[in-house]
């Protein structure tokens, strides 16, 4: 395999590392009601929300949101009402992301 790569001058290019990417967002639209009294306040200043997608883990989300995977307990603590087991999160779950 490697021989063929060398023969054809195709050296393995290192894949770019996107592990320290930071993402965020906000909206002018209200967030869906989750039973609290505040239903129309934008989520921008009160912390973000994040919708779990396939392949996510709390540490992955912490890495993206805070740049540090070790901060996953912060997200876990803020979402104890919906996360029973920190190793089990599901696509579609909406997590609160507290300020770093």
């Amino acid at each position: 395999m490697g021989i063929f790569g060398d023969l054809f001058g195709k050296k393995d290019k290192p894949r770019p590392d996107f592990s320290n990417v930071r993402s965020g967002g906000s909206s002018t639209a209200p967030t869906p009601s989750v039973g609290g009294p505040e239903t129309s306040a934008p989520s921008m200043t009160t912390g973000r929300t994040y919708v779990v997608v396939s392949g996510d883990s709390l540490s992955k989300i912490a890495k993206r949101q805070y740049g540090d995977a070790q901060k996953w307990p912060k997200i876990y603590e803020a979402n104890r009402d919906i996360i029973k087991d920190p190793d089990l999160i599901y696509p579609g779950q909406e997590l609160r992301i507290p300020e770093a």
Partner: protein
Amino acid sequence: MRMHRYTRVPVSLLLAVAPFGCSAPKPAAQTGVKVTQIDVGRSIAADKTIAEKTDSFRPADTFYVSVKTDGSGPSATLTARWTYQDGQVVDESGQNIAPTGGATVTEFHLSKPDGWPAGGYKVEVLLNGASAGTREFKVT
């Protein structure tokens, strides 16, 4: 007599179609929310629209995508999926919104403290899991 015929036909049609409409798995159709505009740029204004549109970024830039939606619904999920030219998913994040009518704007942004690798990028916006549009841009 005619009245009966006219009323029976639509009812039977509704009965035939109802199971498909009710069991449709995509909530997008039920919420009445639709994506009307997607813009990419390097900064946003206070109303979350793109202040500086571009499809050519520098490594130190922050990518912004602004998604305009119209309509209302109790819950809709907007997702931005960013990918690099090699197919690698750079990031995917979502926001749940509950627009009450009229136009709303949702922004997603992405930064990389040590700079973006040069190359082509793509951001795909999904509404309730269904693609609503794609924008391509590059970093030079």
